[in-house]
């Protein structure tokens, strides 16, 4: 099968790769670009571990054909920290013990970022709604919800 040239922005940087037809964005990110932060959980949109932002909108990279991001901007967990400083969401996750095994954490952080980017002061119910597409087997969700609310209050304090 012929490969297709594909260009897009990956965490603010232009990248160009060749993909086989049918390659999904998760495989392109992990195997062709080497960004291992989006995780493979189920490969069918059931767990949220592969969540990324495309032009600021939350998407499941395992269900996204790589070719559809041509010319668009893809953001992953790898791009959210500011140099050596953790993103406020990452800081809040650490402070609130919101990760145990950590496999779901990158996807949940992206889902939380998508929420706070469009709604900096979410209610608890809005946080629950925002992460409801992500499966976590360790934390019981409570510390995650608390971490997202804590990050939102840090954002309020800064604003």
């Amino acid at each position, binding site marked *: 099968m012929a490969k297709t040239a594909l260009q897009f922005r990956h965490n603010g940087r232009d990248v160009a790769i060749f993909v086989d037809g049918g390659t999904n964005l998760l495989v392109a990110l992990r195997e062709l670009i080497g960004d291992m932060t989006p995780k493979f959980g*189920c490969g*069918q949109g059931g767990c949220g571990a592969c969540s990324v932002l495309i032009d600021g909108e939350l998407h499941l990279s395992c269900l996204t054909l790589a070719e559809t991001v041509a010319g668009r901007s893809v953001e992953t967990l790898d791009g959210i920290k500011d140099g050596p400083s953790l993103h406020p969401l990452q800081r809040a996750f650490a402070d609130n*013990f919101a990760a145990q095994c950590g496999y779901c954490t990158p996807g949940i952080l992206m889902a939380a970022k998508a929420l706070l980017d469009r709604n900096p002061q979410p209610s608890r119910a809005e946080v*629950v709604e925002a*992460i409801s597409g992500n*499966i976590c*087997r360790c934390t019981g*969700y*409570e510390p995650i919800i608390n971490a997202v609310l804590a990050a939102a209050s840090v954002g309020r304090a800064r604003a």
Partner: protein
Amino acid sequence: MTRHRGRGIASINYPIGMNLGGDPSQALVHSNPSGKFTVALSSIDLGQGMKSVTRQICAETLGVPVEDVYVDTADSDTGPHCMGSFASRGTHRVGNAVMMAAREARGVMMEAAAEELEVNAADLETDGRGNIHVKGAPHRSISTKDVAIAAQFKQGKTISGRGIFLVPLSDVDPETGEMSPATCYAHACLVAEVEVDDETGEVAMVRMDSAYELGRALNPRLVEQQLVGGAWMGISHALYETPEPYYPDPSHGPRDFVEYLMPGPGDICPHDIAVLERPAADGPFGAKGPGEMCANPVLPAVANAIFNAVGVRIDELPITPEKVLRAIKAQGGARPQARR
């Protein structure tokens, strides 16, 4: 259609570790020339905090800052043998092995320091900040780093220690049938409040209140994390997840995350936890273990709460809406029990 509230209680005793032929774990501790220490284990940390807790135990036993200890684990080629991370045994078994190894390493470290300071090792103490000094004379002091360098390059000593903790196989007494499968037990009590819909059979969690007695909590935030996450898994086992919903016919079983039911973030409830600390005599610094038992009391408490709410006794897990509805129909409607 009515939603019925019900409250249920359950208490459990949970044995720490297992006893199928003896239950050992090993640890090795050594210092590096920088004065930092490495703990070699092959125990797995799946996120429960094994690395954090063994690091604390090693630092406390050695008398050095926790920052000076590194735990290298999860490779059975390079680490000494461990039975595994299960049965809530990690903190207790591995922690005890680390303590024994760290004690031996501390002995060598104090001997090496004694040689440098030209005093008797029995007269020395650690300050927990990386120094060793003569008791009552803090100015007669040497850093653990300088001790490590002297041991390595001058005295030709390895500051190291070996540790193993073994709970031996407990045979059954042929006369009485008695055995001692565990050396210590953790305890818990949990009250669950649920709301049962008598038209759909759905059970919603309203709140939980629990008390856990698990020896000394060596890292209280990690203990809390285990209890919160484990309670979620208890709810999941009680009400949601099973690989064989129509046992023994597997053809209608869930095949993936889309079909395998688990509670989401919207299905959890407020949970108030009290941690009671009664140090275990044979635990590292009195610790038992907060592992598996954090899920256990939720299941019987939820089953009892459902009985309290609608008067049906479901004794097969998970307690699905279908089972609740069939049982309510079989008894001719919901029969709320007395509120306690």
